[in-house]
C-alpha cells in the first residue's frame, strides 16, 4: 500500500510540474489521468518493492553524481577514438562477475555499464555479465569492481 501512496505522490507532482496551470478543467483532467494510471499499474501488477525504491532516493542520487563524473571521463576516450584520423580501437568481450543480488541492483549495475560510453552489457545470466568494451584496457579484471560495489550499496544497502 505504501508503494501506491508513493506512486500517487510522484504522479501528482509530475503532472503539476508538467502543466503548471491551476484551472479547474486542467486539474480535473490531471486527477482522472492519475487515477487511470494507478488502476492500470495495479492491474498490471508492476508496483512492488523493486519498482519503487523510495527509501533509497538519497543513495541513488549520490550514486548518480559519482556515475555522472565517470561517464564524462569515459566520454573523452570514445570522442577521441571517433575523431582520430586513423582508426585505433581494441574491442573485447569480457565476462564480469557481480556481487549484486537483487534484480534492482543488477539492473542498476548493468545499466551503469551500458550508460558509460565504451562499455555495453550484452547479456546478463545469474551473477555474470557479458560486457563488450571498445578498449580492452577499460575492461580488464577489476575495472568494474568499484561500480559494482557502489551500485550494490545504492540499491541493496551494505554492499560487499
Amino acid at each position, binding site marked *: 500500500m505504501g508503494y501506491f501512496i508513493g506512486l500517487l505522490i510522484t504522479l501528482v507532482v*509530475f503532472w503539476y*510540474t*508538467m502543466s*503548471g496551470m491551476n484551472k479547474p478543467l486542467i486539474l480535473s483532467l490531471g486527477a482522472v489521468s492519475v487515477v487511470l494510471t494507478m488502476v492500470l499499474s495495479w492491474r498490471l501488477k508492476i508496483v512492488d518493492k523493486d519498482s519503487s525504491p523510495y527509501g533509497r532516493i538519497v543513495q541513488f542520487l549520490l550514486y548518480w553524481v559519482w556515475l555522472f563524473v565517470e*561517464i*564524462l571521463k569515459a*566520454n573523452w576516450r*570514445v*570522442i577521441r*577514438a*571517433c*575523431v582520430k584520423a*586513423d*582508426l*585505433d*580501437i*581494441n*574491442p*573485447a*568481450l569480457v565476462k564480469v562477475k557481480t556481487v549484486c543480488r537483487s534484480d534492482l541492483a543488477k539492473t542498476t549495475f*548493468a*545499466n*551503469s555499464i*551500458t*550508460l*558509460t*560510453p*565504451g*562499455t*555495453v*552489457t*550484452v*547479456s546478463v545470466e545469474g551473477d555474470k555479465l*557479458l560486457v*563488450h568494451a*571498445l578498449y580492452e584496457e577499460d575492461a580488464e579484471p577489476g575495472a568494474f569492481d568499484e561500480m559494482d560495489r557502489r551500485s550494490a550499496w545504492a540499491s541493496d544497502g551494505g554492499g560487499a
Partner: protein
Amino acid sequence: MLTDAIEFFHLVRPWLGGAFCLLGAVLTVIGTAGVLRFPDFYTRLHAASITDTAGATALLIGMGLMAPGWVVVAKVAAIWVFLFLTSPTASHAIANAAHVAGLEPLIGRLGRGEVDPASGEEA
C-alpha cells in the same frame, strides 16, 4: 555584490546557453561520425552512446540556461532523466538481440586503415 553577480549571470545566461547547445550539437555530430566509420555493430553502439550521454547533457544544460521560467527547467530536467533511464535500456536491448541472434563481434586491435571484410567498409 551578490545582486551584481546575479545580474551578470542573467546577462550572460542566454549566451552561455547557446554555447552549451552548440557544444552538445558538435558532440552529437562526433558521435554520429563514429557511428558511420566504426567497423562493426558493437563498436557503433559505443559511438551512439556519446549522443545519448554527453551530447544530450550539454544540449539540455544549454536549454535549461535559456529557459524563461522554472516550469521549463523542470521539463528539461524531466527529459534528461527519461533519456538517462531509457537509453541504456534500449542500447542493452539492441545489443542483447544481436548477441542472441548470433552476431559475432570483431575482437582484437583494429586500425591503420584495414578493410574489414565482414561489413565491406573502409575502416
